[in-house]
């Protein structure tokens, strides 16, 4: 459990970081909180010649809420998100999800940028960001571009991010209405057996919008349009919830692991999605 040797870089600004990435190509990788990358290096499942630590880049930190939009710097830790009063007001689902990640020690180190950039289907923030219809800002040698969270994930560890790019910011419109992040895990410090993010609005007794995304139930996060659509226009009655659950479960493709076989996960997913929708409805 000792990583192979690597060079450590600690640039003071984004330009410096991009420079190191450009110089070493795919032999270089950025280091955020290190709580996904370093375990992989210690297991020698990831070999990284040059680690580019983003800790000193102050611009990458911080939470700003203005004009109905939420902007979170990539290097903001999960703990900072949980502690943020601004975020609690603008998007309480973030803290509800973040406290269900790992344990306090991991959350003091782990960043939102690392969590969404990692591409591990077990990470909770990608599904959450798809639910919120967030946009990721990527900065590379040729400038910056924006990619929707819903378009970002291709397969496990394969994302829309190019090797030379750094994810700098996550932004989304402050959500309205009811929300829930529901997660089943075996213990503290475990990734999800099944997890689900729901954000929805209601008006005049009818659901007017609904976004539903799931974690660790396929090799990428799963956003289900059909599940949301099954709720919209209904009163959120049992039949509608059931239809939404059925649509969501149809979109997942879980694989068996130590948490249990696929059929079990499918069933748990249905229960967790149903509970998330119900709780979100009760808060709308």
């Amino acid at each position, binding site marked *: 459990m000792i990583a192979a040797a690597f060079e450590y870089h600690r640039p003071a600004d984004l330009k410096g970081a991009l420079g190191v990435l450009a110089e070493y190509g795919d032999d270089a990788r950025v280091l955020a909180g290190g709580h996904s990358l370093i375990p992989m290096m210690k297991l020698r499942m990831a070999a990284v010649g040059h680690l580019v630590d983003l800790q000193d880049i102050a611009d990458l930190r911080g939470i700003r809420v203005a004009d109905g939009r939420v902007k979170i710097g990539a290097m903001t830790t999960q703990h900072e998100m949980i502690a943020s009063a601004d975020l609690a007001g603008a998007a309480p689902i973030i803290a509800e999800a973040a406290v269900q990640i790992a344990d306090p020690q991991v959350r003091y180190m782990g960043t939102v940028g690392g969590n969404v950039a990692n591409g591990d289907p077990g990470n909770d923030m990608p599904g959450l960001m798809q639910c919120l219809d967030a946009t990721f800002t990527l900065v590379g040698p040729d400038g910056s571009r924006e990619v929707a969270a819903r378009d970002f994930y291709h397969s496990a560890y394969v994302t829309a991010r190019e090797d030379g790019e750094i994810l700098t910011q996550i932004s989304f419109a402050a959500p309205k209405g009811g929300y829930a992040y529901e997660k089943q895990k075996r213990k503290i410090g475990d990734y999800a057996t099944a997890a689900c993010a729901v954000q929805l609005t209601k008006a005049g007794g009818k659901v007017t919008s609904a976004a539903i995304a799931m974690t660790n139930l396929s090799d990428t996060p799963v956003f289900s349009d059909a599940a949301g659509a099954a709720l919209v226009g209904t009163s959120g009655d049992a039949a509608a919830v059931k239809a939404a659950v059925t649509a969501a479960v149809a979109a997942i493709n879980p694989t068996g692991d130590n948490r249990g076989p696929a059929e079990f996960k499918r*069933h748990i997913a249905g229960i967790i999605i149903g509970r998330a929708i119900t709780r979100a409805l009760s808060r709308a």
Partner: protein
Amino acid sequence: MNDLTPTPQERTAKLKGLGTSRKRVEDARFTQGKGNYVDDIKMPGMLHGDFVRSPYAHARVKSINADAARALPGVIAVLTAADLAPLNLHWMPTLAGDRQMVLADGKVLFQGQEVAFVVATDRYVCADAIELVEVDYEELPVVTDPFKALEPGAPVLREDLAGQTSGAHGARRHHNHIFLWETGDESATNQAIEAAEVVAEEMIYYHRVHPCPLETCGCVASMDKVNGKLTVFGTFQAPHVVRTVASLLSGIEEHNIRVVSPDIGGGFGNKVGVYPGYVCSIVASIVTGKPVKWIEDRMDNLMATAFARDYWMKGRISATKDGRITGLHCHVTADHGAFDACADPTKFPAGFFHICTGSYDIPVAYVGVDGVYTNKAPGGVAYRCSFRVTEAAYFIERMIEVLAMELGMDAAELRAKNFIRKDQFPYNSALGWEYDSGDYHTAWDKALAAVDYAGLRREQAERVAAFKRGETRKLLGIGLTHFTEIVGAGPVKNCDILGMGMFDSCEIRIHPTGSAIARLGTISQGQGHATTFAQILATEIGLPADSITIEEGDTDTAPYGLGTYGSRSTPVAGAATAMAGRKIRAKAQMIAAWLLEVHDGDLEWDIDRFVVKGAPERFKTMKDIAYAAYHNAIPGIEPGLEAVSYYDPPNMTYPFGAYVCVMEIDVDTGTHEVRQFYALDDCGTRINPMIIEGQVHGGLTEALAIAMGQEIAYDAIGNCKNSTLMDFFLPTAVETPHYTTDHTETPSPHHPIGAKGVGESPNVGGVPAFSNAVHDAFRAFGLRQAHMPHDHWRIWKIANQLGLHG
């Protein structure tokens, strides 16, 4: 006497002796991070060793090329079996009478097996060098199922045993068979069962788990070539035995070997055995002339050092219609992995599993245990229990539940009906044990009353009805257990480890100013010996516990003992401590008599002093006497005040307890919540109630882990599936429920202070309590047996198979 004269109560309190919740003296350093563990030991010029391990569960090792590794700067040596063979150290004897490869000799038999030992200037270089060692493997068919291992065409695992039709424990009937160990009267048992009105039969599997101490195993070996002395610091639960084994293996005379166990961060049986890492470190130190450190990482520990359990227990239990048990038959298929490295007393290859008649008066019984080789890691240690006692307790406590279902009788009532009665002690069990003392009915009634058992059953019935009406998706389980342990091994006449009788020892020196040091043959791994043994002594010799240092673990200074495991420290070394204390007191009495100018028969002991009978104002305190022992020339009495006792226990001790677990189970998700856990322990005389409570909390939490999630499982090709703490369940404070502890106190009649040992009771009793709660929740729907661990998916599977998911 005046107002300032302390009362007897005050004098007793000052001693902090037996029965006092004295704070643990160890904790000051542990809570400040000032403990001194093996990995804290740094010696000048120290090298580091680490293993190349097998990725395969069964493969031929065709060649090992270490040239590239040796060429790496910082690498001092790469040892393989070929290097150890000339010393005859490529294999080593196990505690169970088998032998084990130190380094792969021609083949590997489990994933994670030690293949080569890299020695380098630091751990980082070791890690890099390991990657550079090229091992050419040829995969062989793998068998991880002990039943398949015994099939006629099963792969031959132990080619080294070819043609050997008998082993250390008798005949071998198959190439993967280790032994069949039997006890009891099988034909009488079969007759009783065949003639019975009611018979329940069930296969009970106690899955493979791992003790997983927070500190992994490791050592620092240092051969001083100038004076010929070998010093080994290590995580040893039995340092003296390690010294003897090291001497026998290496040929170094025993006085030239010093084994030291420094602070140990938990052992739970994992640190009893001898591991290849110790042998390789010692050899490497002898070869290089430098100290060599070897420390396992978590994956090494979980994959390669000793596991526990893995017992397939096929039971038949019979009873009369009204629930009186008439016979018990048990056949175990015991998966020992690739080498038989169980840590049991020599004559007991299945440990004390034959305590499996439990707390019940069962007239006739039989146990047969088949030990089997598979392509899994070796071990079979007593994970926080006496040898195979947890398996036994789980077996009988499940069989009782199954029988209760068969009888249509309440399981609490069935237990009470069959308990050994108080007036039957000392009780001779059908399988040959003499239970020392017990009062099971009192404990049971107290437990049932404490939890309002009748009320719980009513609530459960209402819950089932509500569930059937579709009003709830949660079920309520009431897990009952009444366990009896057998601990404190053991009488030298039948208990030994590698020929060393399982006595233990204590040596006491009283200092002139009235303080003392006592050294024992045991070694604390967190049990708080430095606290409790001083308390035993304080009560025996009348010096405050705070004035008594307890030292263990250095074979150069401590008297010989067999170490700490199987709850033996208090029953055996604790007894030695009391006996040595009594020797001190006997001499002190002579000294006091001389000082007071009376006949020693005219004195009586009073808390901390000898008093002239009938003249309470004439006394000498132990402090006075200590000074006199070194100061006065007393005719006929040697100066000094010291004593040593080697205690050979006349019998084991038999702690018992009554546990009740109340659990809510979510049928849809398989999750659970322990709503209530009541644990009544009877460990005889209670030395330190606070430490007992701490031990019970810790043991119950391990029991929770085992019952509800912990396992070492293998896939079909022998890959270990739980080699990190992500997949090996170690509960945190969040998963740990609240516990209510309680006690009764039935002293052991043969132990000097009546103490029985408690550290392992909660693991032994806890596992069946948690597991029975899960089973009980589904009893109304017909569940008889579902194997542990009861993790989410397995509980979900129970519900699913019972058709509860609609």
